[in-house]
């Protein structure tokens, strides 16, 4: 949300069995489940937003961007959700290893990446991410601290996430240059 991406508002909640989770507001069309988006149409309708989502997914190591976690219905705001496969992923005991494995990977495998052809939004959005990571503001650090204090991650995991996100931030422009359909625009980044 701090990056201006359209995600449903949420909060850290405690489930019946005592475990903690991030729960976000369920949204839909007057109570009906919102239709999955068609990736090529989503990018055509929202080229700037699509570029931002691609860079965001790359930053947080989200390899699970598909049509089912994008919403793009006429007359409603596009939405993105379900980021539970990012950062630690679903690796169970290999949670920390995933961040090591993907440290330098340009993660551009989501359904939007192949359709993004406009490089123009990347610089401004990379700057926004830079602000979040900047030690002067320390927003990434304070969010991770909050999550650790809520008992969702350990101190080791907190340190690892902060290190991972701060490490990748200056490399994002270089990473998105590898998008397949930027054509000559990649060199302008």
């Amino acid at each position, binding site marked *: 949300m701090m990056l201006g991406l359209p995600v449903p508002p949420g909060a850290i909640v405690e489930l019946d069995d005592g475990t903690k989770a991030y729960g976000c507001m*369920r949204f839909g069309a007057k109570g*009906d489940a919102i*239709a999955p*988006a068609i990736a090529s149409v989503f990018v055509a309708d929202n080229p700037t937003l699509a570029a931002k989502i691609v860079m965001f997914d790359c930053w947080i190591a989200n390899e699970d961007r598909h049509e*089912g976690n994008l919403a793009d219905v006429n007359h409603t705001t596009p939405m993105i959700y379900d980021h539970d496969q990012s950062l630690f992923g679903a690796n169970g005991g290999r949670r920390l290893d995933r961040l090591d494995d993907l440290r330098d990977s340009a993660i551009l495998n989501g359904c939007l990446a192949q359709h993004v052809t406009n490089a123009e939004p990347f610089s401004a959005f990379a700057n926004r991410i830079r602000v979040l990571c900047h030690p002067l503001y320390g927003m990434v650090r304070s969010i991770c601290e909050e999550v650790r204090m809520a008992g969702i991650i350990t101190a080791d995991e907190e340190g690892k996430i902060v290190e991972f996100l701060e490490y990748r931030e200056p490399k994002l422009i270089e990473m998105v240059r590898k998008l397949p359909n930027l054509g000559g625009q990649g060199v302008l980044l």
Partner: protein
Amino acid sequence: MNAKWLIAKYIPDMRRREPQNIGIILLKDEKPYLRFKGRDKADGKIDGNKTKFQKSVENYRAWVSYWEYAASKEGLDGLLRRPRPDDNFILEFGGERIIGSGSTEPEAFADELYGQLVEADTIESGLAMEARVETAIDRIFRRLDISEKVEKDLILPETADTDRLFFDFRYKNGKNTWMKRVRIEHGSEKRAMEPLYSAAWVFERARGVDTNCHLVALVDYSGESSVIRPEEYLQKHGGTVINVADESGAADGLRELLGLSGMLAIS
């Protein structure tokens, strides 16, 4: 050559989990043939007036568009992949038939499947519809906490000796609110309009003898017969239309009309 089909279903209430069939997708030679409620099979456009079973026509259009796209691009596997737990638009594998060359054309077969699997489900029997509407009205009255106060099956007293005007319900709150169930028939516009003509006739005469009353038509038009506009027609004849297919909206409408407080029991 094999033809496989999927049945598209819509679950109006995820707590009750009572899906209704809304369309079919037939795949033959990797080409999809879609038949959906309210969708023109020639141009693929969806008429919102024929899809009142769901809550947002834009969202319904988006679902059908997505399924069409996924069927063309990824076939059966793509369509059946990754259902989300909260989805109330779902696809289920319907069946498979071997079609030899020169036999049934896929377009005709899709029509046949749609007729058997969706339309047959849509056109409910008169008795089933009566029972459903009666239950809906009962729930609306209970929601408003007026079940005990509503009188049933009445004749407007002033007309007892002449053209007797029958009403299903009356609620008195300073003045009479006469309520009449109006069953809208499926099929042609003529068939659909006849009950409205009848209700309009009753309303006009009732207005002549009980000049200060409310006249309400309790109409169920969740079905496919919405080529007509009951509200517009009956309003011209002094009636207010309450659509009992939308129980929440119907309760709100009646609450306002009957002058009831907002602090009421919710069943």
